[in-house]
Protein backbone atom coordinates (compact mmCIF):
# COMPACT_ATOMS: atom_id res chain seq x y z
CA UNK A 1 0.00 0.00 0.00
CA UNK A 2 1.63 3.15 -1.16
CA UNK A 3 2.01 5.72 1.53
CA UNK A 4 0.90 9.06 0.34
CA UNK A 5 3.17 11.85 1.19
CA UNK A 6 1.79 15.19 2.11
CA UNK A 7 2.67 16.61 -1.27
CA UNK A 8 -0.31 14.88 -2.73
CA UNK A 9 -2.78 16.88 -0.75
CA UNK A 10 -5.43 18.23 -3.06
CA UNK A 11 -5.80 21.39 -1.02
CA UNK A 12 -2.33 22.66 -1.51
CA UNK A 13 -3.05 22.34 -5.20
CA UNK A 14 -0.56 20.51 -7.29
CA UNK A 15 -0.45 22.08 -10.65
CA UNK A 16 -1.90 20.18 -13.54
CA UNK A 17 0.89 18.34 -15.35
CA UNK A 18 1.86 19.80 -18.70
CA UNK A 19 2.16 16.49 -20.37
CA UNK A 20 -1.05 15.46 -22.21
CA UNK A 21 -0.35 11.79 -21.52
CA UNK A 22 -0.32 12.42 -17.80
CA UNK A 23 -3.45 14.59 -18.04
CA UNK A 24 -5.21 11.74 -19.80
CA UNK A 25 -4.11 9.27 -17.14
CA UNK A 26 -5.63 11.51 -14.50
CA UNK A 27 -8.86 11.89 -16.49
CA UNK A 28 -8.98 8.14 -16.95
CA UNK A 29 -8.52 7.47 -13.24
CA UNK A 30 -11.14 10.02 -12.25
CA UNK A 31 -13.70 8.91 -14.85
CA UNK A 32 -13.23 5.22 -14.09
CA UNK A 33 -13.82 5.84 -10.40
CA UNK A 34 -16.64 8.37 -10.60
CA UNK A 35 -20.00 7.23 -9.27
CA UNK A 36 -21.84 9.49 -11.73
CA UNK A 37 -21.16 11.20 -15.05
CA UNK A 38 -18.73 14.10 -14.73
CA UNK A 39 -19.44 17.40 -16.43
CA UNK A 40 -16.72 19.44 -18.12
CA UNK A 41 -16.87 21.89 -15.22
CA UNK A 42 -16.27 19.08 -12.72
CA UNK A 43 -13.45 17.67 -14.81
CA UNK A 44 -11.80 21.08 -14.92
CA UNK A 45 -12.07 21.21 -11.14
CA UNK A 46 -9.98 18.04 -11.06
CA UNK A 47 -7.15 20.14 -12.49
CA UNK A 48 -7.90 23.09 -10.23
CA UNK A 49 -9.30 24.87 -13.30
CA UNK A 50 -5.80 25.06 -14.72
CA UNK A 51 -6.67 23.60 -18.10
CA UNK A 52 -8.96 25.10 -20.70
CA UNK A 53 -12.26 23.65 -21.90
CA UNK A 54 -10.88 23.23 -25.41
CA UNK A 55 -7.90 21.21 -24.19
CA UNK A 56 -10.21 19.14 -22.01
CA UNK A 57 -12.53 18.36 -24.93
CA UNK A 58 -9.59 17.24 -27.08
CA UNK A 59 -8.25 15.02 -24.30
CA UNK A 60 -11.67 13.46 -23.70
CA UNK A 61 -12.10 12.73 -27.39
CA UNK A 62 -8.67 11.15 -27.51
CA UNK A 63 -9.51 9.10 -24.47
CA UNK A 64 -12.77 7.97 -26.03
CA UNK A 65 -10.88 6.81 -29.10
CA UNK A 66 -8.26 5.04 -27.02
CA UNK A 67 -11.02 3.05 -25.34
CA UNK A 68 -12.91 2.42 -28.56
CA UNK A 69 -11.69 -1.17 -28.84
CA UNK A 70 -11.92 -2.00 -25.16
CA UNK A 71 -14.67 -3.75 -23.23
CA UNK A 72 -15.80 -0.55 -21.57
CA UNK A 73 -16.50 2.63 -23.47
CA UNK A 74 -16.34 6.31 -22.59
CA UNK A 75 -19.53 8.16 -23.44
CA UNK A 76 -20.67 11.72 -23.41
CA UNK A 77 -24.10 11.85 -21.78
CA UNK A 78 -26.55 14.52 -20.73
CA UNK A 79 -24.86 15.19 -17.42
CA UNK A 80 -21.31 14.51 -18.49
CA UNK A 81 -18.78 11.83 -19.32
CA UNK A 82 -18.81 8.30 -17.97
CA UNK A 83 -17.41 4.85 -18.65
CA UNK A 84 -19.86 2.01 -19.18
CA UNK A 85 -19.56 -1.62 -20.16
CA UNK A 86 -20.36 -2.49 -23.75
CA UNK A 87 -23.71 -4.18 -24.23
CA UNK A 88 -22.06 -7.37 -25.51
CA UNK A 89 -20.65 -8.07 -22.04
CA UNK A 90 -23.91 -7.80 -20.18
CA UNK A 91 -24.73 -11.52 -20.39
CA UNK A 92 -21.53 -12.24 -18.46
CA UNK A 93 -22.17 -9.52 -15.93
CA UNK A 94 -25.71 -10.76 -15.48
CA UNK A 95 -24.50 -14.19 -14.38
CA UNK A 96 -23.07 -12.57 -11.28
CA UNK A 97 -26.16 -10.57 -10.60
CA UNK A 98 -29.18 -12.79 -11.04
CA UNK A 99 -31.48 -9.91 -10.23
CA UNK A 100 -33.44 -9.20 -13.38
CA UNK A 101 -33.26 -5.66 -14.67
CA UNK A 102 -36.52 -3.75 -14.62
CA UNK A 103 -38.64 -4.56 -17.62
CA UNK A 104 -41.31 -1.99 -18.11
CA UNK A 105 -44.89 -2.68 -19.14
CA UNK A 106 -46.31 -1.09 -22.26
CA UNK A 107 -48.30 1.31 -20.10
CA UNK A 108 -45.10 2.53 -18.43
CA UNK A 109 -43.23 2.78 -21.72
CA UNK A 110 -46.03 4.68 -23.47
CA UNK A 111 -46.30 7.07 -20.55
CA UNK A 112 -42.54 7.57 -20.63
CA UNK A 113 -42.60 8.21 -24.38
CA UNK A 114 -45.34 10.82 -24.01
CA UNK A 115 -43.42 12.58 -21.22
CA UNK A 116 -40.19 12.41 -23.21
CA UNK A 117 -41.57 13.65 -26.52
CA UNK A 118 -44.27 16.05 -25.33
CA UNK A 119 -42.68 17.40 -22.13
CA UNK A 120 -43.66 19.11 -20.02
CA UNK A 121 -47.02 17.34 -19.73
CA UNK A 122 -49.64 16.84 -17.05
CA UNK A 123 -51.13 13.52 -16.18
CA UNK A 124 -54.28 14.76 -17.94
CA UNK A 125 -52.31 15.28 -21.15
CA UNK A 126 -51.00 11.74 -20.93
CA UNK A 127 -54.49 10.39 -20.38
CA UNK A 128 -55.78 12.35 -23.38
CA UNK A 129 -53.14 10.84 -25.61
CA UNK A 130 -53.36 7.31 -24.30
CA UNK A 131 -57.16 7.38 -24.00
CA UNK A 132 -57.06 5.68 -20.61
CA UNK A 133 -56.67 6.63 -17.00
CA UNK A 134 -53.01 6.68 -16.00
CA UNK A 135 -52.49 4.80 -12.76
CA UNK A 136 -50.50 6.65 -10.09
CA UNK A 137 -48.29 3.58 -9.89
CA UNK A 138 -47.10 4.12 -13.46
CA UNK A 139 -45.84 7.63 -12.78
CA UNK A 140 -44.32 6.49 -9.51
CA UNK A 141 -42.29 3.76 -11.24
CA UNK A 142 -40.75 6.39 -13.49
CA UNK A 143 -40.17 8.83 -10.66
CA UNK A 144 -38.52 6.16 -8.52
CA UNK A 145 -36.17 5.28 -11.34
CA UNK A 146 -35.23 8.94 -11.37
CA UNK A 147 -36.27 9.28 -15.00
CA UNK A 148 -39.18 11.66 -14.54
CA UNK A 149 -39.84 14.50 -12.18
CA UNK A 150 -42.18 17.39 -11.57
CA UNK A 151 -40.86 20.57 -13.12
CA UNK A 152 -43.75 22.88 -12.31
CA UNK A 153 -47.50 23.23 -12.27
CA UNK A 154 -49.83 24.30 -15.02
CA UNK A 155 -51.79 27.40 -14.21
CA UNK A 156 -55.19 25.80 -14.67
CA UNK A 157 -57.78 24.70 -12.11
CA UNK A 158 -56.22 22.14 -9.78
CA UNK A 159 -52.76 23.35 -10.79
CA UNK A 160 -51.76 19.94 -12.18
CA UNK A 161 -48.10 18.94 -11.93
CA UNK A 162 -46.04 19.19 -15.09
CA UNK A 163 -43.84 16.16 -15.71
CA UNK A 164 -40.59 16.10 -17.64
CA UNK A 165 -37.72 13.68 -18.12
CA UNK A 166 -34.50 14.06 -16.10
CA UNK A 167 -30.83 14.04 -17.00
CA UNK A 168 -30.61 10.60 -15.45
CA UNK A 169 -33.13 9.36 -17.99
CA UNK A 170 -30.91 10.62 -20.80
CA UNK A 171 -27.76 9.28 -19.10
CA UNK A 172 -29.32 5.85 -18.61
CA UNK A 173 -30.30 5.74 -22.29
CA UNK A 174 -26.90 6.96 -23.46
CA UNK A 175 -28.23 10.28 -24.76
CA UNK A 176 -26.87 13.80 -24.47
CA UNK A 177 -30.17 15.61 -24.96
CA UNK A 178 -33.84 14.97 -25.76
CA UNK A 179 -33.05 16.02 -29.31
CA UNK A 180 -31.17 12.73 -29.58
CA UNK A 181 -34.32 10.71 -28.90
CA UNK A 182 -35.29 8.51 -31.86
CA UNK A 183 -37.23 10.72 -34.27
CA UNK A 184 -41.00 10.33 -34.23
CA UNK A 185 -42.53 8.53 -37.16
CA UNK A 186 -43.82 11.13 -39.55
CA UNK A 187 -47.44 10.31 -40.17
CA UNK A 188 -49.74 11.78 -42.70
CA UNK A 189 -52.00 13.85 -40.54
CA UNK A 190 -54.18 15.34 -43.25
CA UNK A 191 -57.60 13.91 -43.38
CA UNK A 192 -58.86 13.09 -46.78
CA UNK A 193 -62.27 14.65 -46.73
CA UNK A 194 -63.13 13.66 -50.27
CA UNK A 195 -64.36 10.26 -49.25
CA UNK A 196 -65.84 11.34 -46.02
CA UNK A 197 -69.47 10.62 -45.74
Amino acid at each position, binding site marked *: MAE*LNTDSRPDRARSAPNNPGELKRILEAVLLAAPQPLSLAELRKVFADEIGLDVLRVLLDELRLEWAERPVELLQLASGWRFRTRAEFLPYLARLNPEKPPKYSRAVLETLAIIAYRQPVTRGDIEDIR*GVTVATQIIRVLEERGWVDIVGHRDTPGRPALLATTKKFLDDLGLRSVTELPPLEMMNQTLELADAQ
Partner: protein
Amino acid sequence: MNDTATSEHIAEPWTEGAEPLARIYGEPMVQLPLDLYIPPDAMAVMLDAFEGPLDLLLYLIRKANVNVLDIPMAPLTVQYLTYVEAMRTHNLELAADYLVMAAMLIEIKSRMLLPKARVDDGGEVEDPRAELVRRLIEYEQMKLAAHRLDELPQAERDFDWVEVWVEKSLLQRLPEVCAADLKDAWGSLLRQARLHTHHMVTREELSVREHMGLILRRLRDTDGFIEFVAMFDTTLGAPVLVVHFLAMLELAREQLLEITQTEAFAPIYVRLANGRVEH
Protein backbone atom coordinates in the same frame (compact mmCIF):
# COMPACT_ATOMS: atom_id res chain seq x y z
CA MET B 1 -64.63 -18.29 -37.83
CA ASN B 2 -67.81 -18.64 -39.88
CA ASP B 3 -70.47 -16.55 -41.49
CA THR B 4 -73.07 -17.37 -38.90
CA ALA B 5 -71.00 -15.99 -36.14
CA THR B 6 -70.22 -12.96 -38.21
CA SER B 7 -73.85 -12.27 -39.07
CA GLU B 8 -74.76 -12.55 -35.41
CA HIS B 9 -72.45 -9.78 -34.62
CA ILE B 10 -73.40 -7.52 -37.44
CA ALA B 11 -77.10 -7.99 -36.85
CA GLU B 12 -77.19 -4.96 -34.68
CA PRO B 13 -79.77 -2.18 -34.76
CA TRP B 14 -77.54 0.30 -36.57
CA THR B 15 -77.06 -2.06 -39.52
CA GLU B 16 -80.78 -2.50 -40.07
CA GLY B 17 -82.34 -2.56 -43.50
CA ALA B 18 -80.44 -2.60 -46.75
CA GLU B 19 -78.25 0.23 -45.70
CA PRO B 20 -74.66 -0.59 -46.46
CA LEU B 21 -72.51 -0.83 -43.37
CA ALA B 22 -70.36 1.84 -44.85
CA ARG B 23 -68.91 3.04 -48.08
CA ILE B 24 -65.29 2.19 -48.44
CA TYR B 25 -63.78 4.55 -50.99
CA GLY B 26 -67.16 4.97 -52.53
CA GLU B 27 -67.93 1.24 -52.55
CA PRO B 28 -70.85 0.19 -50.37
CA MET B 29 -69.91 -2.31 -47.78
CA VAL B 30 -72.54 -4.62 -46.41
CA GLN B 31 -70.41 -7.15 -44.66
CA LEU B 32 -67.88 -6.72 -41.94
CA PRO B 33 -64.38 -7.52 -43.14
CA LEU B 34 -63.54 -10.93 -41.78
CA ASP B 35 -60.27 -9.74 -40.40
CA LEU B 36 -62.06 -7.47 -38.02
CA TYR B 37 -63.61 -10.41 -36.33
CA ILE B 38 -62.12 -12.01 -33.27
CA PRO B 39 -63.85 -14.96 -31.61
CA PRO B 40 -65.31 -13.95 -28.26
CA ASP B 41 -63.44 -16.76 -26.50
CA ALA B 42 -60.21 -15.06 -27.24
CA MET B 43 -61.53 -11.88 -25.74
CA ALA B 44 -60.11 -12.15 -22.27
CA VAL B 45 -56.64 -12.79 -23.65
CA MET B 46 -56.98 -10.03 -26.20
CA LEU B 47 -58.14 -7.42 -23.76
CA ASP B 48 -55.08 -7.85 -21.63
CA ALA B 49 -53.05 -7.06 -24.68
CA PHE B 50 -54.72 -3.69 -25.25
CA GLU B 51 -53.64 -0.55 -23.54
CA GLY B 52 -57.06 1.03 -23.89
CA PRO B 53 -59.80 1.91 -26.39
CA LEU B 54 -57.42 3.74 -28.74
CA ASP B 55 -55.13 0.75 -28.80
CA LEU B 56 -58.07 -1.55 -29.49
CA LEU B 57 -59.34 0.70 -32.28
CA LEU B 58 -55.90 0.89 -33.85
CA TYR B 59 -55.69 -2.86 -33.73
CA LEU B 60 -59.06 -3.24 -35.42
CA ILE B 61 -58.15 -0.73 -38.10
CA ARG B 62 -54.72 -2.19 -38.79
CA LYS B 63 -56.09 -5.72 -38.76
CA ALA B 64 -58.73 -4.79 -41.32
CA ASN B 65 -56.08 -3.11 -43.36
CA VAL B 66 -58.11 0.03 -43.77
CA ASN B 67 -56.74 3.53 -44.01
CA VAL B 68 -56.69 5.27 -40.66
CA LEU B 69 -57.47 8.49 -42.52
CA ASP B 70 -60.65 7.05 -43.95
CA ILE B 71 -62.12 4.87 -41.27
CA PRO B 72 -65.27 2.95 -42.14
CA MET B 73 -67.13 4.10 -39.08
CA ALA B 74 -70.06 1.71 -39.18
CA PRO B 75 -68.22 -1.62 -39.20
CA LEU B 76 -65.61 -0.28 -36.85
CA THR B 77 -68.27 0.81 -34.41
CA VAL B 78 -70.03 -2.54 -34.72
CA GLN B 79 -66.87 -4.43 -34.05
CA TYR B 80 -65.86 -2.21 -31.19
CA LEU B 81 -69.24 -2.59 -29.54
CA THR B 82 -69.01 -6.30 -30.01
CA TYR B 83 -65.88 -6.27 -27.93
CA VAL B 84 -67.41 -4.11 -25.28
CA GLU B 85 -70.45 -6.37 -25.14
CA ALA B 86 -68.21 -9.39 -24.92
CA MET B 87 -66.38 -7.81 -22.05
CA ARG B 88 -69.64 -7.50 -20.21
CA THR B 89 -70.74 -11.07 -20.79
CA HIS B 90 -67.35 -12.31 -19.68
CA ASN B 91 -67.76 -10.35 -16.49
CA LEU B 92 -64.61 -8.49 -17.20
CA GLU B 93 -64.14 -5.34 -15.39
CA LEU B 94 -65.26 -2.87 -17.97
CA ALA B 95 -63.17 0.23 -17.89
CA ALA B 96 -65.09 3.47 -18.20
CA ASP B 97 -62.58 4.52 -20.84
CA TYR B 98 -63.97 1.87 -23.19
CA LEU B 99 -67.53 3.03 -22.68
CA VAL B 100 -66.61 6.65 -23.28
CA MET B 101 -65.04 5.65 -26.54
CA ALA B 102 -68.12 3.59 -27.51
CA ALA B 103 -70.29 6.67 -27.04
CA MET B 104 -67.91 8.72 -29.13
CA LEU B 105 -67.93 6.19 -31.97
CA ILE B 106 -71.71 6.02 -32.04
CA GLU B 107 -71.89 9.78 -32.10
CA ILE B 108 -69.44 10.05 -34.98
CA LYS B 109 -71.23 7.36 -36.91
CA SER B 110 -74.61 9.03 -36.54
CA ARG B 111 -73.22 12.40 -37.52
CA MET B 112 -71.85 10.84 -40.66
CA LEU B 113 -75.30 9.58 -41.60
CA LEU B 114 -76.65 13.12 -41.57
CA PRO B 115 -76.52 15.17 -44.75
CA LYS B 116 -73.48 17.39 -44.92
CA ALA B 117 -74.30 20.75 -43.44
CA ARG B 118 -73.17 23.70 -45.47
CA VAL B 119 -71.11 26.16 -43.57
CA ASP B 120 -72.18 29.78 -44.06
CA ASP B 121 -68.79 31.12 -44.88
CA GLY B 122 -68.35 28.46 -47.55
CA GLY B 123 -65.49 26.80 -45.69
CA GLU B 124 -65.00 23.10 -45.55
CA VAL B 125 -67.09 21.04 -43.25
CA GLU B 126 -65.12 19.23 -40.66
CA ASP B 127 -65.24 15.51 -40.98
CA PRO B 128 -66.88 14.09 -37.85
CA ARG B 129 -64.02 11.63 -37.67
CA ALA B 130 -61.32 14.28 -37.61
CA GLU B 131 -60.81 14.35 -33.86
CA LEU B 132 -60.81 10.56 -33.60
CA VAL B 133 -58.27 10.30 -36.42
CA ARG B 134 -56.05 12.91 -34.82
CA ARG B 135 -56.09 11.01 -31.57
CA LEU B 136 -55.47 7.67 -33.24
CA ILE B 137 -52.50 9.05 -35.13
CA GLU B 138 -51.01 10.72 -32.09
CA TYR B 139 -51.48 7.61 -30.01
CA GLU B 140 -49.95 5.40 -32.66
CA GLN B 141 -47.01 7.78 -32.92
CA MET B 142 -46.40 7.52 -29.17
CA LYS B 143 -46.82 3.77 -29.25
CA LEU B 144 -44.08 3.53 -31.85
CA ALA B 145 -41.94 6.01 -29.91
CA ALA B 146 -42.31 3.87 -26.78
CA HIS B 147 -41.09 0.91 -28.77
CA ARG B 148 -38.09 2.86 -30.07
CA LEU B 149 -37.23 4.06 -26.59
CA ASP B 150 -37.29 0.53 -25.33
CA GLU B 151 -34.83 -0.42 -28.07
CA LEU B 152 -32.21 2.01 -26.82
CA PRO B 153 -29.47 0.47 -24.67
CA GLN B 154 -30.60 0.98 -21.12
CA ALA B 155 -28.53 1.21 -17.96
CA GLU B 156 -28.64 -2.00 -15.91
CA ARG B 157 -30.58 -3.85 -18.61
CA ASP B 158 -28.01 -3.55 -21.40
CA PHE B 159 -24.92 -2.15 -19.72
CA ASP B 160 -23.43 -1.42 -16.33
CA TRP B 161 -21.65 1.72 -15.25
CA VAL B 162 -18.00 1.45 -14.43
CA GLU B 163 -17.20 2.54 -10.93
CA VAL B 164 -13.73 1.52 -9.88
CA TRP B 165 -13.17 1.20 -6.18
CA VAL B 166 -11.60 4.13 -4.44
CA GLU B 167 -9.98 3.38 -1.10
CA LYS B 168 -10.46 6.71 0.59
CA SER B 169 -8.30 5.84 3.55
CA LEU B 170 -5.31 5.93 1.21
CA LEU B 171 -5.81 9.62 0.95
CA GLN B 172 -4.51 11.24 4.07
CA ARG B 173 -5.98 14.67 4.32
CA LEU B 174 -3.83 16.94 6.40
CA PRO B 175 -4.96 20.09 8.10
CA GLU B 176 -4.16 23.35 6.45
CA VAL B 177 -2.29 25.98 8.39
CA CYS B 178 -1.51 29.47 7.26
CA ALA B 179 0.73 32.09 8.80
CA ALA B 180 -2.28 33.93 10.18
CA ASP B 181 -3.27 30.81 12.13
CA LEU B 182 0.09 30.92 13.88
CA LYS B 183 -0.35 34.59 14.66
CA ASP B 184 -3.77 33.83 16.13
CA ALA B 185 -2.34 30.95 18.14
CA TRP B 186 0.34 33.22 19.48
CA GLY B 187 -2.27 35.82 20.26
CA SER B 188 -4.29 33.36 22.29
CA LEU B 189 -1.11 32.31 24.09
CA LEU B 190 -0.51 35.92 25.00
CA ARG B 191 -4.00 36.28 26.34
CA GLN B 192 -3.81 33.14 28.41
CA ALA B 193 -0.32 33.35 29.79
CA ARG B 194 -0.12 37.16 29.99
CA LEU B 195 3.37 36.92 28.69
CA HIS B 196 5.78 39.54 29.78
CA THR B 197 7.88 41.65 27.56
CA HIS B 198 10.85 39.36 27.84
CA HIS B 199 8.82 36.79 25.94
CA MET B 200 8.12 39.20 23.16
CA VAL B 201 9.88 38.44 19.97
CA THR B 202 10.78 41.16 17.59
CA ARG B 203 11.25 40.79 13.90
CA GLU B 204 15.02 41.13 14.33
CA GLU B 205 15.16 38.52 17.03
CA LEU B 206 13.13 36.28 14.87
CA SER B 207 15.62 36.40 12.03
CA VAL B 208 18.40 35.71 14.53
CA ARG B 209 16.38 32.74 15.70
CA GLU B 210 15.96 31.50 12.17
CA HIS B 211 19.69 31.64 11.67
CA MET B 212 20.25 29.83 14.92
CA GLY B 213 18.21 27.00 13.47
CA LEU B 214 20.12 27.13 10.21
CA ILE B 215 23.47 26.94 11.99
CA LEU B 216 22.37 24.09 14.22
CA ARG B 217 20.98 22.18 11.27
CA ARG B 218 24.19 22.66 9.31
CA LEU B 219 26.35 21.50 12.19
CA ARG B 220 24.05 18.59 12.81
CA ASP B 221 24.34 17.44 9.24
CA THR B 222 28.11 17.88 9.28
CA ASP B 223 28.53 15.98 12.51
CA GLY B 224 31.88 17.53 13.40
CA PHE B 225 33.90 20.69 13.23
CA ILE B 226 33.39 23.35 10.64
CA GLU B 227 35.78 26.17 10.18
CA PHE B 228 34.26 29.36 11.56
CA VAL B 229 34.69 31.36 8.37
CA ALA B 230 33.08 28.57 6.37
CA MET B 231 29.89 29.20 8.31
CA PHE B 232 29.44 32.50 6.53
CA ASP B 233 28.27 33.01 3.01
CA THR B 234 29.64 36.41 2.09
CA THR B 235 27.47 36.60 -1.02
CA LEU B 236 24.39 37.17 1.15
CA GLY B 237 25.38 40.68 2.09
CA ALA B 238 26.31 42.43 5.28
CA PRO B 239 22.91 42.41 7.06
CA VAL B 240 22.59 38.66 6.73
CA LEU B 241 26.21 38.17 7.85
CA VAL B 242 25.54 40.24 10.93
CA VAL B 243 22.39 38.33 11.78
CA HIS B 244 24.23 35.08 11.21
CA PHE B 245 27.03 36.21 13.48
CA LEU B 246 24.55 37.27 16.18
CA ALA B 247 22.89 33.90 15.89
CA MET B 248 26.28 32.25 16.36
CA LEU B 249 26.93 34.33 19.49
CA GLU B 250 23.47 33.60 20.83
CA LEU B 251 24.00 29.88 20.32
CA ALA B 252 27.35 30.12 22.09
CA ARG B 253 25.71 32.02 24.93
CA GLU B 254 23.04 29.33 25.20
CA GLN B 255 25.90 26.82 25.17
CA LEU B 256 24.62 25.12 22.11
CA LEU B 257 27.84 25.72 20.24
CA GLU B 258 31.40 24.98 20.97
CA ILE B 259 33.80 27.47 19.42
CA THR B 260 37.45 26.53 19.63
CA GLN B 261 40.75 28.06 18.66
CA THR B 262 44.00 26.29 19.52
CA GLU B 263 46.14 29.45 19.50
CA ALA B 264 45.92 33.08 18.58
CA PHE B 265 45.30 33.64 14.86
CA ALA B 266 44.80 29.95 14.28
CA PRO B 267 41.64 28.94 12.44
CA ILE B 268 38.53 28.98 14.60
CA TYR B 269 36.33 25.87 14.55
CA VAL B 270 32.72 25.46 15.42
CA ARG B 271 30.81 22.38 16.37
CA LEU B 272 27.71 21.43 18.28
CA ALA B 273 28.16 21.41 22.00
CA ASN B 274 29.19 17.88 22.93
CA GLY B 275 30.15 17.40 19.33
CA ARG B 276 27.57 14.73 18.86
CA VAL B 277 24.15 14.71 17.40
CA GLU B 278 21.38 12.47 18.42
CA HIS B 279 19.04 11.94 15.62
